């Protein structure tokens, strides 16, 4: 079996093609566990995982928690509001205190890009980046890659359009890096205010009009439009966004017959996606959630399971 020599999972940036393949293969073998009657294996018995979520999260947090529990690890969950970070403690101090209790892994969600990288330098425990600012969300990208591979049989050569606020999306950034590493062709789409400068240098194509962007694609991946960004003059309002950039059945008519539609959640129905698309035949949105648990089990296992070489 291939080796996985990482202490942390900080981003797709840090993973090689072999690493990514290895994680996806491992996830495949774990997926079945979640369909069993007794959904638990003893693989990580005696290991402890801290879920440290400095930003609100339902899906990712639950997914990590389930993944850890199904592998028999002990889990503790911390959120910012219930932690000493609201009392003014710095991230490093909080982390050192956690480290003093000897956890094996810390799963960190944080509003600052680079926060997990800072933590990884400070503590011995492994760090999993569960989303840092607008930088990366590697387990989301891994579960997206897993889902694409599962539905399409391969990633290499696939054409994928990512539509939405690319500038402020860690999901987009991780997916772009991961997909390009795996040999896919990536197009990003959205209003010009939401496409970051020099994004083409990452090797993606920019097509602002979503109707154009989805035409030749095998996969259409939507991003959540963050309602609070409206104040930052990125776009005038949800109504206009929905009519020009929302993915509707009408737009989908121009897409390939076997296209699949993905969304990292939570969805704003009627904004970036209409209900007929979200619930339509090409939607694999709930498969993504299912696969998320398997992929996170794989990541936990590869980081702290088995013996270190």
């Amino acid at each position, binding site marked *: 079996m291939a080796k996985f020599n990482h202490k942390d999972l900080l981003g797709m940036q840090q993973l090689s093609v072999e690493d990514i393949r290895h994680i996806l293969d491992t996830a495949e073998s774990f997926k079945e566990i979640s369909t069993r009657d007794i959904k638990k294996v003893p693989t990580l018995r005696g290991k402890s995982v801290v879920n440290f979520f400095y930003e609100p999260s339902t899906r990712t947090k639950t997914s990590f928690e389930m993944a850890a529990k199904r592998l028999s690890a002990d889990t503790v969950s911390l959120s910012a509001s219930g932690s000493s970070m609201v009392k003014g403690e710095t991230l490093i101090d909080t982390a050192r205190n956690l480290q003093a209790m000897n956890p094996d892994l810390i799963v960190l969600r944080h509003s600052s*890009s*680079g926060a997990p990288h800072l933590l990884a330098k400070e503590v011995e425990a492994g760090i999993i980046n569960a989303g840092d600012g607008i*930088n990366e969300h590697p387990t989301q990208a891994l579960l997206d890659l897993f889902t694409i591979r599962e539905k399409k049989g391969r990633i290499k050569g696939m054409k994928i359009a990512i539509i939405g606020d690319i500038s402020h999306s860690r999901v987009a950034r991780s997916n772009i890096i991961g997909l390009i590493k795996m040999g896919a062709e990536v197009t990003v789409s959205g209003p010009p205010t939401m496409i*970051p400068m020099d994004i083409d240098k990452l090797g993606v194509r920019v097509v602002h009009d979503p109707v154009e962007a989805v035409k030749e694609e095998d996969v259409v991946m939507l991003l959540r439009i963050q309602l609070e960004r409206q104040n930052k003059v990125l776009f005038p309002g949800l109504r206009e966004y929905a009519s020009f950039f929302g993915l509707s059945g009408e737009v989908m008519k121009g897409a390939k017959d076997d296209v699949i539609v993905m969304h990292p959640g939570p969805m704003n129905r009627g904004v970036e996606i209409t209900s007929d698309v979200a619930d339509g035949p090409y939607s694999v949105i709930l498969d993504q959630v299912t696969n998320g648990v398997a992929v996170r089990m794989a990541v936990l296992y590869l980081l702290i399971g088995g013996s270190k070489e």
Partner: protein
Amino acid sequence: MRTWIKDGEMVDPVKGIVNKVDLIIEKGRVSEVLPHGTFSGKDERINVISASKKLVVPGLVDMHVHLREPGHEYKETIKTGVKAAVAGGFTSLACMPNTVPPNDCRSVTDFILEQAKRAKLARIFPIAAITMAQKGETLTEFGDLRQAGAVAVSDDGFPVVNSDVMRRALEYARFYGLMVISHSEDLYLSGEGVMHEGAVSTRIGLPGIPASSEEIAVYREISLAKLTGCPVHIAHVSTAGSVELIRRAKERGIPVTAETAPHYFSLDHSAVIGYDTRAKVKPPLRTSEDVQEIKKGLADGVIDVIATDHAPHSPLEKELEFDKAAFGMIGLETAVPLTLKLVRDGVLGLAEAIRKLSYNAASILDIPGGRLLEGDRADLALIDPEYEYVLQEEDICSKSKNSPFIGKTLKGRNELTMIGGKVVWRRSA
């Protein structure tokens, strides 16, 4: 007793020449500059300082430092700041007003000068705030501040947003002979940005500060200087576009001068990769193309001055998430090696480089210093241009250690600093 600085290569930034001389100092001033070998001095008791294989340069003048006192003494004090200055070869400093409280009235200026007198080392020239509490609304008492000893006014760190206030500041300051130093930044465009907006910020997911944020503000100052005919000095130029704007303004005779900091010609935005908060500065480190244009601007005289923007911060402000960390890096102790690299790389001649580190700043602020002609105060530094070393945190005299050059190999180092004919600092072996 006289002092004889022997066998050194003297850099004369005024005449633009470098040659071996015998430099004689008496009563705190340069008494004679003689061709090498023509001074015997054998019939008197004389204090001899060997400057063999060293450069003898006028004490360097840094027109842009943050000494943090009053208010943030845990980052730097005037005492530790001047220690860092003399260690780096600087004998005169102009300190920015963004202290707590800010230097917006005579009592703060008095206090700074009092602390400088106690610290005894480098000479301090306070820069006062343009507006009360640096709020950008009401002008400070320029006349009173000038009398107290302020040499310039600046909005450093808190740019004056209201262009009419800036216009009036330029007009009013000229009457008192105060230079106006502009921190040119459009705060709206900078927004929540924490590094240069470009390929690197896109790749590592940090909010960006576009080059336009600086250039729009630089153009405003140039336009106001043209309108009023009053001089303005642009602080810490970091972009190719700013260099171009200033070049054109100078060609048209608009009274504008400019400085850049060593980090803007030594590092580009890739230094931020890995979320290294020591490389977080404002304006941010730009692209390698900008770095090239900054060098060109230095070479063709568009940029008059190299100033450090020495900005000490403690781990409390720096050992944080990148977006929460403070902007700024220290610079007093790395300016010499970083500038000498420009000389080795053929960007600047030696005399020109030293001129940008001394005489030009003194001229812009209209303060003494920056030259070693007969009769001048004997403020000088002896620099070993060949000494190569890895910068260690322990070597830094500043109270704060926030430098991205720690661990880097540098070449060239100040060995001895003299102020008013007295050796105030000597590198211990």
